[in-house]
């Protein structure tokens, strides 16, 4: 019906549309396949995977906030070996791009994960240098440009697929983090991971989340995510995958105008498992309404004052 071209490119990777499921809100995809054929999506990023199995944090892991939620799951996952054996084979068979979100405590972990993923048949690795809910690695690495560059370079040397670096928004200068990833050879940066937040149960005087703090996501973070995507767009030449609070096809367009070559959808899926197909269905008419004939032509087309 519509003649709008939805295909988009993130470096060498071409996706059928710019909607990629974000890490941690889509499992390893299989649970979602009862809702729809994953082939409708541009791509799927797996739950964060670590070298060894992780049990994750004790409950409560979730708290609510106006315009969003906090989580501190703590990277519960079966470990890379099991994921490669039991989860990825199914996911790779789906007609969509598969990106594995890799999380570690230190450089060695990231290297091990990149090595293990060689030859598995995925389309990219997303280095999670930004999870705020674990004690070591991740966000600690992701707020130090030198560490970002080092980890990225090491993985880039080993991996046989593109490396995306996922950045934390809990930093003063996000552009510097993107530059460090670029310097390390990253094929793309994805942002934002969650904002570090907290909620207290006033009755028990306890933090609602057992981990005390949690990562804040949802529409309440959208303005921050959009600003940071645009800052990175100005700072680096590698493509940007934009996420954080995207709830509608209009938000997708707004994020791409700010400079994102593709987007990821996280929390919105939790509220309605059909959210991503709904956005994909709505996207052509939103693009038409602003006079665009393809999705790729709008990337970074925001005109600052």
């Amino acid at each position: 019906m519509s003649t709008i071209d939805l295909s988009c490119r993130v470096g060498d990777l071409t996706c059928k549309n710019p909607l990629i499921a974000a890490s941690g809100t889509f499992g390893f995809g299989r649970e979602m396949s009862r809702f729809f054929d994953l082939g409708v999506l541009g791509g799927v990023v797996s739950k964060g995977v670590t070298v060894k199995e992780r049990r994750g944090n004790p409950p409560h892991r979730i708290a609510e906030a106006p315009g969003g939620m906090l989580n501190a799951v703590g990277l519960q996952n079966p470990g890379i070996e099991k994921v490669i054996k039991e989860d990825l084979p199914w996911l790779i068979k789906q007609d969509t791009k598969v990106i594995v979100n890799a999380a570690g405590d230190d450089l060695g972990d990231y290297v091990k994960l990149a090595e293990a993923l060689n030859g598995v048949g995925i389309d990219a690795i997303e280095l999670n240098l930004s999870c705020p809910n674990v004690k070591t690695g991740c966000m600690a690495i992701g707020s130090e440009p030198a560490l970002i560059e080092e980890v990225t370079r090491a993985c880039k040397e080993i991996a046989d697929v593109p490396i995306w670096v996922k950045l934390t928004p809990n930093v003063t200068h996000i552009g510097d983090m993107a530059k460090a990833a670029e310097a390390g050879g990253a094929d793309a940066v994805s942002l934002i991971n969650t904002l570090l937040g907290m909620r207290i149960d006033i009755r028990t005087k306890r933090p609602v989340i057992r981990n005390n703090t949690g990562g804040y996501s949802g529409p309440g973070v959208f303005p921050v995510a959009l600003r940071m995507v645009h800052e990175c767009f100005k700072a680096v030449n590698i493509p940007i995958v934009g996420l954080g609070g995207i709830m509608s096809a209009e938000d997708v367009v707004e994020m791409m105008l700010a400079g994102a070559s593709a987007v990821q959808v996280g929390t919105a899926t939790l509220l309605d498992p059909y959210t991503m197909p709904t956005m994909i269905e709505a996207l052509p008419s939103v693009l038409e309404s602003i006079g665009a004939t393809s999705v790729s032509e709008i990337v970074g087309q925001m005109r600052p004052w």
Partner: protein
Amino acid sequence: MMERKYRHDATITKVDHLDEDNVFLTLNAPELSELSKPGQFVELETSQFLNRPFGVAICDKKAGTVGIGVRKVGKGTKEIFEYKAGDKATLFGPFGYGFSISEKTSRAYVIGGGTGIYPLLFLLQELKRAGIKTYTGCGFQSLTHALMIDDFSHISDDYLTACEIGEADVSGTAVDALAELYERHGQSDGTIVYACGPIPMLKAVNAWCEENGIDAECSFEARMGCGFGVCRGCAIPVIRDGQPTYDRCCVEGPVFRRGVVDWEGL
């Protein structure tokens, strides 16, 4: 447009305020009622950010309706309490692993506490349909807090209300009711306890079952992000392969065999 099998744009057909804090909603949602099994739950949209999980409490596949009982505890349920017949409601589901009704089951002790009683209504309906004898005990703070006594006693082969305060069939907890019912009806091969209620009650049920060598299926609650298995928000401590880990309340649960639950870790 793609089919949305697990999304239901329902109409509320009936609103029964059971007391000052509890409301029973009947919703017209044919596909949902078609799919639902006892122990499963739905996620109800409100103006709050996350959807709210409620056990399917009644399911009339012929009429195409489901019922849920809701207790007012916070912002979301306060809003639900104000719903009127004719209002629209969006639900997702049914989700979760419900109660299992085995061919071998001959008699069932059905134990509920607080809002945990609601999903047991649907279970009792199906147990009855399967020709299984049901002995039901529901525990409440006091008789003024007791809910749906008529419905439960009507559908059960024997029914007891337990209250810690005031005069009731049993003075004590739901587990005291369980003991009394067991006293009366005993066990045979294929006896099982089904339980749904607050954690302390489930723990007591588990301890009693341990003592009496009876199996149980317990329905748990956990804060949920999604309700369908992708966020890992709804952790319930279990023992798998001898190791403590976390299952998903929304996929492996909300109903767990008592043997897999890590009762210490709760």
